[in-house]
Each structure stands twice: as structure tokens, then as C-alpha cells.
């Protein structure tokens, strides 16, 4: 095997194993920053040895064992250091005695538990949302600082800083490497789900930049979601989120036209939706439902997405059910954005006037002041009601608010279409 062959294999193995290696090491040293260093050491050892010795039969176990030995060495060194400093008494010796056999057992129990701990710690509320995203992509996704920077369109040093600070914050706050207790679990789990969904959304509807989608982030969020669904199979919201992401991702390739322009959901060619992902999404939704509890916010959003996925054409969509699901979502997790979506569903189920009634109440909503989708939806409803001049103004306003260039182009086209159709009422562009 040539050295570059070995490096390619090591890259692939690292992609599959890195999160587990870090999680194992973190379990031993209790600090994710140190754990990542140890995992990197194991990677360096592989890069040194594998080109010579060949790739071991079980490369994951090799990496984990190497990182684990280094972790235990490090712990022993620290203990020795403490011992010298503090003239180790009986008590400390007893502690050490108790600690080491535990560590030897670590490698035999389920690594899944450690992965789950790593997810909870990376998404810990002591960290800022940006830090949670970066740390999750780094430690669990195995993405490099450069890849994360490129995905979020921020300079590489900014991401590096975020990750360094996040690790320091976790160490200073002495955040334990553990799955939260029952009392905190629901809140902490929803923090993990929110982080995954934020990553997904940054890929699905980038808040900035030139691309309409960045599939890498969607794929990464989905992969982590699927992993989480195996680690926490009894939490219906985990399956709800996975269902939501699978179904949304099924439309990725239909959302972009031949020259990169966005195509909105109802105008997409449904034959181009990814039916493997739709099937997976509907199955995940069934798993959530089978757990018997009422849907949480992600489950409800997934049920809404499933209404689209099940309909063979835009006309066949069950808008009445969709409106009912939005009613439920508005009750469970009320927000102006949900209200806006509810308005769209109402307009499709009961006509544009029904939707406009709700949208008009949102116009003075301060949190939506610079949200481009409000004037965009309002413009759409006004256009459908034939109020084209008002519609045009709304589309132009929406275009001035969006930060995405392709979306701006689409909105300006719709504004221009209003102008064209107001003098030519038989036009077909809505």
C-alpha cells in the first residue's frame, strides 16, 4: 500500500470513527477539549504507523484503544503530579485505585452512551448558539475548521476562536461529561435538536451568501440526526426532527432550477423529489407516532411536511389537514413565523382572503419587521386577489429585505410579473 493510499483510507476511517474516539477519550478525561487532542494524537499515530504496517483489521478499535491509552497515561501523569504536590494521602490513593479499573472497563461498554454524552455536552446551554453549532460539527461531524468556515461563510480564524472558546467555557464551567438527569433531559435534548435543526436550516435556506442551498450542511445534520435517533430511540421528538429533515431534504434537488434559480415548493416537479428520503421521513414520523405521545413542535412540523410529501400534486395537498396542524403548532409553539405559515395553509384551504386576514394582523409585528417572507407571502395573497399594485410593492419590499441574492432575483421577477399582468390580465405567471 502506498503512503497516499494509506492516507486516503485513514481519512475515510477518521470520518467514520472520530466522534467515537473523541467520545471515548472524553469519558476518561472528562474534558472534550483534551479528548479531541488525544484523538488527534491517535490519528497522528495512525498516519505514522499504518503506511508501514498496513491498516489494522479493526481500525476503529485501534484508534480508540490508542486514544484511550494516552488518556489513561495522561490521567496517571496528572495523578502523579498531584501526588507530588499534595503528598498524597490515603484518601487520594483510594480514589485512584477506584478510578483506574473503571477506566479499563470503559472500552467494553457501549460507545453509543459516550456519543450521546458528547452530543449533550457539545450542545450545552452554557455555550452560545454559534459555539454549539461549531463544536457539534467539529466533534461529532468531524468537519475541519476550514469546512465549517466555508459552510457558514465566516472567516476560518473566527470558527477556530469559537471552538477554542467553547472548549474553554465547558472546562471552566466544569460541565460534566454525562447525559443529563431526568429532570433536565427534555430541555437539554431540545437544545441538541435545535442545534441539529439550525445546522440543517443553514444548509436548506442559507441566511446569507449566493447559494440557494448548501447540501453539505443538510447532509451533516441529517447524519447526526439519524445517529441520535439510534442513541435515543424512545424520544418521539428526535424521530420528529429526523422525519422533518428527511422530508425537507427530499426536495433539495427539486428546489433549484437548471441555472441555480430557486423553485418554490408548490412549483416543484414532484417526480424529482427524492422518494428514498420521503419514505425514510414518513417511517421516522411513524416511529414518533408509535411512541404514543402527542407530537412536539418537530413532530408537528414533520406531519406538516408529510402532507406535502404524500400529495402527488400541489392540487392534491390536504390543505385543511395542514391548516389544522398549523393550528396545533400555533398553540404549542406560538410564533409570528408559525402564524405566517398558518396563514398560507389557510389561504390554500379556504382561499387567499382567509390567509390575508391572518397576515394583515402580522404586519405590525415587530419581530417580523425585517423578515422578507412576510411581504413575500402578503404579496402572493394580494396577487391572487388581483390587487396587483399592492402585491408588486410587497414583492419589492421583500426583495429589499432578503440577504440571499437568488431569492432577491426571484422576488423581483414576481414584482415585475405583477406590473406586466396588471396591463395584461390573461398572464399566467403567479
Amino acid at each position, binding site marked *: 500500500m502506498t503512503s497516499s493510499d494509506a492516507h*486516503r*483510507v485513514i*481519512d*475515510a*476511517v477518521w*470520518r*467514520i470513527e472520530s466522534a467515537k474516539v473523541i467520545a471515548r477519550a472524553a469519558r476518561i478525561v472528562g474534558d472534550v477539549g483534551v479528548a479531541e487532542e488525544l484523538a488527534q494524537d491517535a490519528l497522528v499515530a495512525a498516519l505514522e504507523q499504518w503506511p508501514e504496517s498496513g491498516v489494522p483489521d479493526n481500525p476503529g478499535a485501534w484508534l480508540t484503544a490508542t486514544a484511550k491509552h494516552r488518556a489513561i497515561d495522561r490521567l496517571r501523569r496528572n495523578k502523579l503530579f498531584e501526588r507530588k504536590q499534595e503528598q498524597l494521602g490515603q484518601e487520594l490513593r483510594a480514589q485512584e485505585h477506584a478510578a483506574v479499573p473503571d477506566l479499563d472497563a470503559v472500552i467494553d461498554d457501549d460507545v*453509543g452512551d459516550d456519543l450521546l454524552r458528547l452530543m449533550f455536552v457539545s450542545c450545552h446551554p452554557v455555550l452560545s448558539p454559534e459555539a454549539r453549532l461549531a463544536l457539534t460539527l467539529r466533534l461529532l461531524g468531524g468537519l475541519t475548521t476550514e469546512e465549517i468556515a466555508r459552510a457558514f461563510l465566516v472567516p476560518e480564524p473566527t470558527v477556530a476562536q469559537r471552538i477554542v472558546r467553547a472548549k474553554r467555557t465547558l472546562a471552566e464551567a466544569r460541565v460534566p461529561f454525562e447525559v443529563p438527569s431526568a429532570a433536565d433531559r427534555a430541555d437539554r435534548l431540545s437544545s441538541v435538536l435545535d442545534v441539529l435543526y439550525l445546522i440543517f436550516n443553514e444548509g436548506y435556506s442559507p441566511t446569507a451568501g449566493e447559494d440557494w442551498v448548501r447540501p453539505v450542511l443538510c*447532509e451533516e445534520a*441529517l*447524519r*447526526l*440526526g*439519524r*445517529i441520535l435517533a*439510534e*442513541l435515543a430511540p424512545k424520544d418521539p421528538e428526535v424521530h420528529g426532527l429526523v422525519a422533518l429533515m428527511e422530508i425537507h431534504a427530499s426536495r433539495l*434537488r427539486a428546489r433549484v*432550477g*437548471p*441555472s441555480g434559480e430557486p*423553485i418554490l415548493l*408548490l*412549483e416543484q*416537479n414532484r417526480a*424529482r423529489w427524492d422518494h*428514498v*428520503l420521503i419514505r*425514510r421521513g414518513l417511517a421516522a414520523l411513524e416511529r414518533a407516532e408509535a411512541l404514543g405521545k402527542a407530537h412536539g413542535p418537530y413532530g408537528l412540523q414533520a406531519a406538516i411536511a408529510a402532507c406535502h410529501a404524500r400529495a402527488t*400534486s*400541489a*392540487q392534491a395537498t390536504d390543505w385543511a389537514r395542514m391548516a389544522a396542524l398549523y393550528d396545533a403548532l400555533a398553540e404549542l409553539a406560538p410564533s409570528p413565523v408559525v402564524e405566517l405559515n398558518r396563514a398560507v395553509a389557510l389561504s390554500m384551504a*379556504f*382561499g*387567499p382572503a382567509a390567509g390575508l386576514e391572518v397576515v394583515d394582523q402580522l404586519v405590525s409585528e415587530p419581530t417580523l419587521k425585517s423578515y422578507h417572507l412576510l411581504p413575500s407571502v402578503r404579496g402572493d395573497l394580494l*396577487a*391572487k386577489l*388581483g390587487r396587483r399594485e399592492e402585491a408588486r410593492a410587497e414583492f419589492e419590499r421583500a426583495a429589499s429585505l432578503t440577504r440571499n441574492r437568488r431569492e432577491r432575483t426571484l422576488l423581483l421577477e414576481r414584482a415585475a410579473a405583477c406590473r406586466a399582468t396588471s396591463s395584461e390580465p390573461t398572464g*399566467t*405567471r*403567479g
Partner: protein
Amino acid sequence: MRFMLMVRANSESESGVLPSAELIAEMGTYAEEMMKAGVLLAAEGLQASSKGARVKFSGGKRTVTDGPFAEAKELIAGYWLIQVKSKEEAIEWARRSPAPFGPDTEGEIEVRQVFEVTDFPPEIFPPEDAAREQELRDELQARAGNP
């Protein structure tokens, strides 16, 4: 990117003999490992070609031939569809598979990349799509005018 890991058939799988319980269990563990890693999208095992058929296209004609087919090695006995980051990662997963017909029988897994929409030049898609989109727009417009 997506890859399909395809297990090549052999005379045993073609004869319709079911895999042993051990092998089924090992394959189950393997699939579970890929599921836990979040990479497995779909997987199926295929029955012997004696239960299938071929449709041949030649000179504008379609001819149906029932199985079984010779050359077992050219047939597929099953597949996994996985989502990974590189060809090397796909190969690494294939390498981790149990020997598909047990340790004492020769087996082969072929690793093939799946086409993504972005692999096609843009001019391949527009006409049909544009027509369909226009159709949808027209329908939506009709709805909007006549809810």
C-alpha cells in the same frame, strides 16, 4: 454523495438456498452499524434470478426472457444504499461487510457511485421541467382566480 454497495450473486444464491442464520445475524449487525453511523439509506436482498425476468430492447422491439440466467457472477444478489462523504468512505464500509456468502465462500461487493442531479449538465433538464413548472403555475393561477 451516495454509493450503492452491490453484492454479486454466486451459484449458491442463484440456487435459491437461504443464507445461514449466522450469516443473517452478521449481516444484521453490519446493517445496524451503518444505521448507527447515520449512513444507511436503504438495503435489500434479491431473490434468485429464476424468480425474475429480463426485458431486452433491440431494434425497437421488446423481448421478455424469464430467468434463471447463466453467469451468476454478473448478477446482483443484494445492495446497500449509503450516503457518505467520499469514495474511500464507501469502500471502507464495503470492507467492513461480513463475507457475503460466509468466510469459506468467495464473494464480491461492487462499490458504485449514484448519479446526483448536479452530475448532469443543466441543458439535460430544462425543457420537460420548464413545461411542467409552467403547467403547475397555470394550475395555481387558475386556483387563485377561482378558489
